[in-house]
């Protein structure tokens, strides 16, 4: 079976002057269409670098990324990114922020009215249609991230890349947004690659969890399948045996076998 997205023997070395740091070592991962894969690891293990490589924002030193059997090495709307700090352009309204991507991606295939309708459709997917004329400074952090998700979704990416999308949010907003992303994944069937450092979030959302060892030279330590049926309900899972088992496995990996030495 051909993989949809394939990370093939990726190494990444940063060079500053004569000093070189090997960040990632021999990363191999295949992701099927429609799959939700999380990458979890301690901070500094290079998981964001890995996401940037998939996005094309950073080049790999060795190896490469194949999307539908074609190598990708520059950024593009087929791998839209939801950035950790939303990265909305503050001088544009919510509507204009989403439209920026839509106008580029559908410049030829959709006319003006269709593009407008498509922007509004995506804003309503994340329940932000009411704030179309607001500027990012006028809406809350959770709302900004919703717009960030709408902007990425509106580009109809083949793979949606989430870079710790809920990291900067408070716990309640985070839970709310996680549910939204789960519902969107259910509804649209996107292929999603998410970076996170939150164990519960990884287990709740993912089909598979990729656990990274500590850097330098971080590798994939273990890949865990999450055998939970969808749609998943946060409250029911709290007592679900296989949920707890998955959670336990990830915690063990992160805090026993690969506990973060430098953190203390």
């Amino acid at each position, binding site marked *: 079976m051909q993989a949809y997205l394939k990370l093939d023997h990726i190494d990444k070395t940063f060079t500053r002057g004569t000093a070189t740091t090997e960040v990632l070592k021999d990363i191999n991962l295949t992701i099927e269409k429609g799959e939700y894969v999380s990458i979890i690891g301690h901070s500094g293990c290079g998981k964001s670098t890995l996401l940037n490589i998939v*996005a*094309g*924002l950073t080049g790999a030193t060795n190896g490469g990324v194949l999307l539908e059997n074609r190598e990708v090495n*520059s*950024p*593009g*709307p087929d*791998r*839209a*990114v939801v*950035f950790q*700090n939303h*990265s909305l*352009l*503050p*001088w544009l309204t919510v509507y204009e922020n989403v439209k*920026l*991507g839509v106008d*580029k*991606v559908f410049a030829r295939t959709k006319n003006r009215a269709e593009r407008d309708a498509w922007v509004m459709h995506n804003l309503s997917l994340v329940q932000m249609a009411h704030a179309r004329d607001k*500027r*990012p*400074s006028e809406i809350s952090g959770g709302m900004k991230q919703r717009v960030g998700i709408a902007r990425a979704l509106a*580009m109809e990416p083949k793979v949606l890349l989430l870079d710790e999308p809920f990291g900067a949010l408070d716990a309640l907003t985070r839970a709310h947004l996680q549910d939204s992303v789960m519902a969107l994944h259910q509804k649209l069937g996107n292929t999603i690659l998410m970076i996170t450092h939150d164990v519960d979030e990884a287990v709740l959302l993912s089909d598979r969890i990729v656990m990274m060892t500590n850097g330098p030279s971080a590798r994939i330590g273990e890949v865990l399948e999450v055998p939970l049926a969808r749609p998943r309900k946060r409250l029911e899972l709290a007592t679900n045996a296989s949920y707890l088992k998955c959670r336990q496995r990830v915690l063990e990996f992160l805090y026993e076998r690969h506990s973060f030495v430098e953190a203390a």
Partner: protein
Amino acid sequence: MSMPAIKTELSAAAIPQAATAAPVVTMTPKRAPRAETYARLAKETAARVVPPLIVVALLLVVWELICRRAGSSLPPPSKVFKDTRELILDPFFDNGGIDKGLFWHLSASLQRVAYGYSLAAIAGIALGTLVGQSVWAMRGLDPLFQVLRTIPPLAWLPLSLAAFRDGQPSAIFVIFITSVWPIIINTAVGIRNIPQDYRNVAAVVQLNPLEFFTKIMIPAAAPYMFTGLRIGIGLSWLAIVAAEMLIGGVGIGFFIWDAWNSSHISEIILALFYVGIIGFVLDRLIAGLGKIVTRGTAAN
């Protein structure tokens, strides 16, 4: 500034009503009476206008007391007003040559500033973008800029007179060369400080270089650009007076010099007053324009 005050007033007015009449119907909150709003506005305006007026009045009194004595080298304000009454009341007379009303002198100076400053804004933003965007352009040009920008405006005047052989373009060139440096340097800093996030967004959306320039760079760097533009307009107004004293002809700078040569000290004082007011207005103009253009950019 006045909005929150209105809101609190409204809610304060609405609460007791809602408490007593809650089960009946929703009542439209009572609006603050118009007279009250005006009274508050007048109060706020007064709070800003009255203190400077008092200070000015005191200074005028002190000046009057010091300069009223016989043999004083500078005229007191009362004499200044008496001497320059005609100039103040009729700024539009034109007796040919340089014997014109103050309006014509000021407008000639403002025209030179407009030309020189517009050129400086265009060239400054273009060069600043280049230097901010390209590391090699920065390495090559930045040392040059740092040396050139320390040259005093008037030092350029003989050189530009030699090059242009005419007063008008020379004055414009001096304005240009004076105001261009802060615009270049601030624009470059603004471009260099564009957050990597915005560049990433542009890369993912695949904006082409022109779109990147108009949709990301200009708005992201606009607050810095306007800082430079504001410093620039101040410097060009500083430079024009000095330059005009030397090149002669119509212009507020030469008006001052001419008044000095004919010992009309009162006219000098009047001209200085106008120069100050116009410099202030120019600065506020650019600041206001910046506020409109960068609305939203600064707050993140």
